[in-house]
């Protein structure tokens, strides 16, 4: 799994872009990266999962913890680009219902 950080965009959100597989061996890295941004005072954080092709229960658990943390800290956390199997897994576990989602990003030039 690879995680990249985009600068704050025009909507005021900083974006963490996640690539690869988010599973029992590495989901903790997503938690750590996002918690770091929240701890640094980022008020609006977006997690872009359009590059994630595998998400298991540990990855879903990481997402749940981040939603819980952001809510407790009064921060805005949004998600983007959830599709394919990761979306199916989030639907099966009902977690998709509590995620605030942004529309898919338009293709970059």
């Amino acid at each position, binding site marked *: 799994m690879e995680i990249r950080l985009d600068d704050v965009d025009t909507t005021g959100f900083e974006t963490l872009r996640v690539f690869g597989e988010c599973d029992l061996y590495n989901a903790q890295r997503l938690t750590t990266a996002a918690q770091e941004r929240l701890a640094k005072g980022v008020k609006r954080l977006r997690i872009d999962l359009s590059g994630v092709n595998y*998400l298991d229960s540990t990855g879903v658990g990481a997402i749940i913890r981040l939603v819980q943390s952001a809510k407790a800290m009064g921060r805005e956390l949004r998600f983007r680009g959830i599709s394919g199997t990761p979306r199916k897994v989030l639907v*099966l576990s009902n977690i998709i219902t509590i995620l605030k989602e942004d529309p898919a990003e338009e293709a970059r030039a």
Partner: protein
Amino acid sequence: MKPLVVRKLIVDERNELFDAQGMRYIEFPSEFEGIRSFTAKVLADCPEHFLEDNLLEQQLSEIIKNGIKHGNGCDPAKRLKVWYDLRKRARFIVEDEGSGFADLENWNDFYLRRQTALYNQDFDAFLALASWRGPKSDDSDGGNSLIAALEYWNGGMIYNGARNKVGVVRWFSHGSD
């Protein structure tokens, strides 16, 4: 408004899902690092349309993980036994050498409260109940694998009396090859 229907984990020692006649068999050491590769090995010649991209792999790996980590405690002396049948549908029996899922009834109570909160659109309560935290849960436990499993295994998900063996089935709308 549709009535609330909440599935449960069921214990049934004599359930037909534990009939391993005609099923293939493989066993693995209880190595946490091997969970995904063991799963891939079981599914090596699985019909393509059963895979649903990698959804079957993901769901089976959760069961294998539960057996290796929670059942066998990653004890290298303990084995994980897997029976599988990929004709007509995806069917598995997974047995560990642990003491069984003692918190099964507590999990069913948790799941009822969780789904009731969702049904009532009480999202604060739902968020607090989003993940199951058992006595042995740690950061690598998402706490949601059984929730997805109850939905995914549409032909049943049954535990044996000792609760250290689970039988699951998923049927596919495309039928068999």
